[in-house]
């Protein structure tokens, strides 16, 4: 089935990724670990833009950027340099942003996503490095604000801006692209996507081959999908009513789920790019081969391997490799139980329960799912009970063994004990008679026999109680 793209939708995305796994900022030694700290406590003359301060590039930031470029199948530029992008905004302490311009560190790459009609290649135009501005907080709403507060802790954090070609044909494909990008970045261990502001999205979208409209201020992947759905609808309606789409920038109002035009004098720009005189050129291509060698296995490669090595379904392989943590978790489990069982339990059951609760794989211990899979495959609990154990752990905590016992889920075990008790009674008539005749101690002998039969797995006290009950019923 081929996707027709009836409205001629073309979506391109610009994704800003904050490399928060670096220890320090892009141009100064301030720590990146500011997320829980007081405002303006992770700043120095450089990232505060004090007069006379000068930038020096973080070498690891460049390595991370090359790593990302290679993972996106990009070409790494021979020589690059930083430029100044000049514009005025209070979050920009130098009055310009230090960024890359005509020689981005990486360009001409691709990302493969699951598109509307099968695999689809999304071309990457470029990926470049730049510094993050500070953070603004409006006193009141942005329109009716009484003032603005500025915290420069974020100022100077390393960003990689990944720009795609307009190759996505629906908000769903845009979402898939974002998920895939996040997946790749997670694998590269260059950022923690859970931290606030770790990934920020600007989108551009056009319909029916018209002008493209840029949407800014999208703060989540879900938001990106919603903003695009709204904007496509708006453009279609506008065209249907005979209107013409003009090239403009719109602001996404997350609360109302709408995009708003931002045609103000403040938004008019002429960035006057020129090379940053305080930073010297970087000859980086020579570093690429070594970084390429050290590149970890990426999601697509891992999926291929899972298919081969564990003989699982394509759907499972995809589900298990999207997130590096899930993939690692799976391989941990698959090393201890049958990998196919592990695939079903991790991909279908456990992930379903986690998603339902909005939890990550971190919320569950691999050894617990191993125990549950063993209990089920040894026929000691039912599959349904296994699911119940997972839910109980997630909702109330506890260990699988205890939960099974507390909830009496060991149906099979009960039968074994019951059977062993019956057998022991039948096989030891003398001891039974002695007991019924008043020799309490004879019961111990029968208990011992039951324990022998159950290889010690039964609980001695339970066995005694059951014997007493059975014998009493008999007599």
């Amino acid at each position, binding site marked *: 089935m081929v996707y027709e793209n009836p409205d001629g939708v073309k979506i391109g995305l610009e994704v800003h990724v904050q490399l928060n796994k*670096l*220890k*320090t900022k892009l141009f*100064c*030694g*301030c*720590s990146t670990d500011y997320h829980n700290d*007081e*405002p*303006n*406590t*992770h*700043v*120095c*003359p450089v990232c*505060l833009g004090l007069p006379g301060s000068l930038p*020096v*590039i*973080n*070498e*690891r*930031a*460049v390595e991370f950027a090359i790593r990302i470029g290679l993972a996106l199948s990009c070409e790494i530029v021979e*020589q690059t*340099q930083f430029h100044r992008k000049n514009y*005025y*905004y*209070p979050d920009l302490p130098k009055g310009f942003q230090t960024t890359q311009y005509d020689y981005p560190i990486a360009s001409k790459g691709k990302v493969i996503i699951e598109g509307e009609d099968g695999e689809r290649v999304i071309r990457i135009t470029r990926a470049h490095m730049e510094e993050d501005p500070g953070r*603004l*907080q*409006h*006193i009141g709403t*942005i*329109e009716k*604000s*009484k*003032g*603005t*507060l*500025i*915290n*420069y802790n974020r100022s100077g954090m390393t960003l990689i801006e990944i720009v795609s070609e307009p190759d996505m044909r629906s908000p769903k494909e845009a979402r898939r692209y974002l998920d895939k990008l996040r997946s790749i970045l997670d694998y590269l261990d260059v950022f923690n996507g859970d931290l606030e502001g770790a990934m920020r999205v600007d989108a551009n979208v056009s319909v029916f081959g018209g002008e493209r409209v840029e949407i800014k201020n999208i703060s989540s992947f879900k938001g990106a999908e919603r903003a695009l759905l709204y904007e496509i609808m708006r453009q279609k309606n506008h065209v249907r009513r005979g209107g013409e789409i003009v090239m403009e920038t719109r602001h996404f109002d997350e609360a109302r789920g709408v995009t708003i035009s931002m045609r*103000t*004098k*403040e938004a008019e720009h*002429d960035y*006057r790019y020129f*090379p940053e*005189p305080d*930073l*010297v*050129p*970087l*000859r980086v291509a020579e570093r690429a081969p070594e970084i390429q060698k050290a590149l970890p296995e990426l999601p697509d490669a891992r999926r291929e391997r899972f298919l081969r090595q564990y003989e699982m379904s394509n759907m499972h392989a995809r589900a298990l490799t999207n997130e590096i943590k899930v993939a690692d978790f799976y391989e941990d489990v698959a090393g201890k139980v049958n990998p196919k069982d592990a695939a079903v339990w991790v991909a279908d059951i456990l992930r379903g329960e986690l998603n339902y609760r909005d939890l990550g794989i971190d919320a569950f211990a691999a050894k617990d799912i191993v125990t549950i899979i063993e209990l089920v495959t040894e026929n000691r609990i039912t599959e349904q009970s296994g699911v119940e154990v997972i839910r109980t752990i997630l909702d109330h905590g506890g260990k699988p063994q205890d939960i099974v016992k507390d909830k009496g889920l060991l149906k099979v075990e009960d039968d074994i004990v019951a059977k062993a008790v019956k057998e022991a009674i039948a096989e030891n008539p003398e001891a039974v008679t002695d007991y019924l005749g008043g020799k309490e101690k004879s019961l111990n002998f029968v208990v011992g026999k039951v324990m022998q039969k159950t290889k010690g797995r039964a609980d001695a006290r339970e066995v005694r109680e059951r014997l007493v009950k059975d014998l009493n019923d008999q007599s």
Partner: protein
Amino acid sequence: MITKEEVEHVGWLARIRIDETKSDAYAGKLNSVLDYFGQLDKVDTEDVPPTYHVMDIVNVFRKDEVTESMPQDAVLSNTEYRKEGNFKTPKII
């Protein structure tokens, strides 16, 4: 020739308020300098690369090692416009 309108536009780009009454005077002074700059048009620079950096050095890096940041009161010490550890400015738009 830079026009009065261009002076006002450039003034906005550079965030320097230019009173309308003065933009003519500005244009006059700027034009005499721009005229002088115009003499570069005569220089043949075909195939001449631009010199962005006069010294031929590349790859100057810093290790990813944390250095001490400034205490908050030092960060804010040069302004009276602050609130709860933040800088405070008028609203943006």
